[in-house]
């Protein structure tokens, strides 16, 4: 079990292309994150928890669906860590598993309104489902 978690963690790091060890824990990414108040774990915590292999809480947290992919943390990190890419990689580790789609096609009709652009739906599906 421990081994497979470690493998998954390595896989998350690999596919994100992020090197969490570059982080100097300044917290600037979380300070600028527009989803901060709705996140249980914040961008800098994603970086630290992936670095230390403590990914279980992240996999089970709603925080992975709160990231807006605004790339603010990517541009404002003084160390070029790019935390958003780790948040994405953790989310993919969850939604890629069978039956783990966070947004299902059937859920969509009731979320629609007259003016909602298609762009919102395709974006949400791309982020929340596989």
């Amino acid at each position, binding site marked *: 079990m421990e081994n497979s978690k470690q493998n998954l963690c390595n896989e998350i790091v690999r596919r994100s292309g992020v090197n969490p060890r570059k982080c100097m824990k300044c917290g600037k990414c979380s300070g600028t994150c527009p989803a901060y108040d709705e996140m249980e774990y914040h961008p800098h915590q994603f970086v630290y928890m992936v670095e230390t292999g403590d990914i279980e809480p992240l996999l089970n947290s709603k925080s992975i669906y709160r990231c807006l*992919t605004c790339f603010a943390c990517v541009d404002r990190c003084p160390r070029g860590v790019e935390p958003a890419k780790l948040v994405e990689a953790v989310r993919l580790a969850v939604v890629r598993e069978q039956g783990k789609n966070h947004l299902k096609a059937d859920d969509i009709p009731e979320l629609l309104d007259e003016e909602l652009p298609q762009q919102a739906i395709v974006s949400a599906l791309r982020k929340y489902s596989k």
Partner: protein
Amino acid sequence: MKVSYFPGCTLKTKAKDLDNYARKCAEVLGVTLEEIPAWQCCGGVFTTSRDEIATKLSSVRALNDAKQKGQPLVSVCSACHNVIKQTNAAMQNDEEFAFKVNNYISPDEYHGETKVYHYLELLRDVIGFDKLKEKVVKPLTGRKIAAYYGCLLLRPGKVMAMDDVENPTIMEDLIRALGAEPVVYAYRNECCGGYIALESKELAKEKSQKVTSNAQEKGAEAIVTACPLCRYNLIKNGTEVPVVYFTELLAEALGIKE
């Protein structure tokens, strides 16, 4: 001059003013936007994961189509542009990724050769704001307009390379060229909430209201955007300031607004 054009799904439906006026204004300015045949939806957001292949193929096919024609690829929607430009950068810089993608477009091979422009960049870098100014027949004199960049036009700055990520000027320069007065405000490059509107209406509301109230405080009479989802979020969450596409403003100044 002819350029390849990627309209995207939303411009064909909910955001027709973004598309129609972009085409008409380009014609007035001497550029024909040639729609890529059989383009497919860009997917709305770029997936940063390096092993995501399928979600990036529609962008690569459009880029490769433009390459075959020897044309730059232009889009107007901030989201399409962001996805296409980030995909192009990945094709240039990530060999392993490019190798996998190229298996799907064989016998062609693509390595990021196509020049990608947002329509705003086309105006600034190809046509030139000075030339544009000469074509203005109805200057928007005395109007106070706030540009809303949001996230996707500018970030990630290293890849998008459109403007200074924290202190952009491209839209303000456009507003000036059209004869209006740009309103600069703090939240012009902060997120409106984007697709979170489907997941958390409260969060989208909070983010959008910060943008519109900030623009209003600074005296804006209108907000312009290049993104249908930004426009939706800003309007949906209550704003006293009208939110329009920058192409509508452009068409007005060029005297072709219907």
